[in-house]
């Protein structure tokens, strides 16, 4: 017995070294941890159990049969984060550059199947040179099997992707199919075709970082949801996210004790009366959410809309808010895309949505029209309309035109719509409206500017307020800013057992 146990220990010891000490040293020199170190840093202490440690590759061509690839370059298993179970895989760059061969992919699909069957979140850590060329089409088959599982698991279990190294070519489509993508500055690199191919085929020079580094995907492409400066910071972000989301789509996120927001966030003072002046809408969220705690998602991308999680009465809540201090808070191609996906995430995982409205409408411009603002903008309408989770809206100031309709209006079946007295719910801003309605009076006047001013004031007095909408019941209550939290808590309580029936269909056709 003792001998056999010693044998087992020796075997394990050898495998735990991955690609060997030299490769590990190289990995560390890049500011990166090894695959197993990463898992241990992310999960609760002593909670990780590794599966399939003894798996070896099966390649028989190009002298591969003479090579040993411990665990075939990927570590799989399960453990807990703050006592919540999670299934994990982490590619091991020290073993053949983390390249994906048949057994490597079988290990990943095994843990994916496990996560789906057990209805627990999946966390995938990517650090791989890509397909293992020596394994040919088997390697491609492996990617396909992963993408298929990403898709069928979508909306059932949370899928979290962590890019801690290169992730290039077809491999990028697994993260793209998952719910949240985490990247780390100078470590993450994602692209379909790398700088080398771009240089030889197109003659254009670009560095890996500028092509598909963490910053690019956080600010420009919108592929990444969380940006960190180090692996440690990244793991902290993942842990925090886990506290806000449920294990699967048939449960709710863990409840916490309710806590009042910090009084420093005085809603009456944060928002200026003048609808053309900016403020940081995140301060309004902090003045509403439990403990003033707001966990922002896609902080650096399309900053004209703010999305993220907070809690109301201890329950996870998704916040969607126009950001007046960035591009006046308009909806455009990028912000529509960002908001719509988040709304669908909340709906899939039973998370109520609070929408804070303050926008001038959709962004005008040839570039926007040609970039497809019609179909991208439609995503917001679609996402709000199909969502059956509790939908609560607060109109803080302006809500003009199509923007008003899109932002969780009564007409898209918001359950509660509140408006501050500063709200202006109208087909467009007073200046634009007066110019059209009173065009004749203004142009034929001896004093066009004076007449215009007078007409704008008339329009403002009559329509730039929440009371016209309230008189039709489109707004349920006009409230003082300081009443906002109390009424939202009331609305949450009232919608705790919300039930709506949708027509039976295979699936809808969202405009994506």
């Amino acid at each position, binding site marked *: 017995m003792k001998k056999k146990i010693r044998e087992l220990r020796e075997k394990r010891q050898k495998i735990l070294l991955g690609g060997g000490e030299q490769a590990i040293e190289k990995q560390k020199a890049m500011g990166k941890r090894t695959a197993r170190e990463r898992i241990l840093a992310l999960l609760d202490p002593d909670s990780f159990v590794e599966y399939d440690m003894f798996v070896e590759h099966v390649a028989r061509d190009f002298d591969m049969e003479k090579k040993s690839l411990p665990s075939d370059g990927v570590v799989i298993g399960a453990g807990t984060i703050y006592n919540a179970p999670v299934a994990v895989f982490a590619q091991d760059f020290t073993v053949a550059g983390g390249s994906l061969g048949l057994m490597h992919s079988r290990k990943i699909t095994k843990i994916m199947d496990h996560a789906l069957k057990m209805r627990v979140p999946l966390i995938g850590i990517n650090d791989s040179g890509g397909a293992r060329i020596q394994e040919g089409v088997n390697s491609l088959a492996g990617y396909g099997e992963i993408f298929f599982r990403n898709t069928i698991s979508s909306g059932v279990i949370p899928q979290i992707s962590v890019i801690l190294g290169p992730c290039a070519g077809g491999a990028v489509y697994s993260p793209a199919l998952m719910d949240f993508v985490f990247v780390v500055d100078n470590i993450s690199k994602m692209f379909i075709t790398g700088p080398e191919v771009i240089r030889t085929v197109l003659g254009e020079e670009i560095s890996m970082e500028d092509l598909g580094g963490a910053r690019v995907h956080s600010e420009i492409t919108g592929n990444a949801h969380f940006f960190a400066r180090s692996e440690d910071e990244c793991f902290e972000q993942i842990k925090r996210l886990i506290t806000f989301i449920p294990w699967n789509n048939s449960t709710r996120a863990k409840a916490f004790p309710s806590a009042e927001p910090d009084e420093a966030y005085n809603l009456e003072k944060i928002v200026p009366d003048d*609808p053309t002046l900016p403020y940081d809408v995140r301060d309004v969220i902090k003045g509403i959410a439990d403990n003033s705690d707001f966990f922002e998602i896609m902080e650096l991308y399309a900053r004209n809309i703010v999305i993220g999680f907070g809690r109301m009465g201890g329950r996870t809540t998704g916040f969607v808010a126009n950001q007046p*201090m*960035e*591009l*006046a808070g308009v909806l455009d191609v990028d912000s529509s895309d960002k908001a719509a996906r988040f709304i669908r995430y909340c709906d899939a995982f039973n998370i109520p949505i609070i929408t804070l409205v303050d926008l001038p409408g959709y962004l005008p411009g040839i570039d926007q029209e040609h970039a497809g603002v019609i179909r991208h903008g439609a995503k917001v309408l679609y996402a709000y309309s199909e969502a059956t989770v509790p939908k609560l809206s607060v109109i803080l100031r302006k809500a*003009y035109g199509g923007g008003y309709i899109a932002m969780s209006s009564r007409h898209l079946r918001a359950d509660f719509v509140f408006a501050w007295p500063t709200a202006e719910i109208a087909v467009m*801003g007073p200046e634009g409206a007066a110019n059209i309605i009173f065009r004749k009076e203004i142009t034929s006047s001896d004093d066009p500017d004076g007449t215009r001013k007078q007409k704008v004031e008339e329009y403002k007095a009559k329509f730039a307020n929440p009371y016209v909408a309230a008189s039709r019941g489109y707004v349920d209550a006009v409230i003082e800013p300081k009443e906002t939290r109390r009424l939202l808590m009331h609305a949450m309580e009232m919608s705790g057992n919300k039930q709506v029936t949708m027509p039976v269909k295979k699936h809808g056709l969202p405009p994506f």
Partner: protein
Amino acid sequence: MNIEEDLGKLKINSIIYTTRLSTKFLKRQPYKPADPRLVMSFIPGTVLEILVKEGESVSAGDDLLILDAMKMQNRLKSAIDGKVKKINVVKGDKVSKGHVMIEIG
């Protein structure tokens, strides 16, 4: 909470908003209508062959140049009748996207 820095102005429907203008917004390209007189590379590639000479008359649909790109030999045709005013490339040139290769007068 300090948002006073780098604020700009954005006009929407006759109203001017004070707000930060994103890099992407500031970098947007002004629209230029397509000019059929300028034959441009629609994709980066290599000039494989030039089939016309300066001063030559061409009709709409005539082949002007072969551009090798993405493992394909693309025959670029003239969209209009006219004269080849200027040829800005020579055989073997690598061109980026949107490069004006031939001008028709």
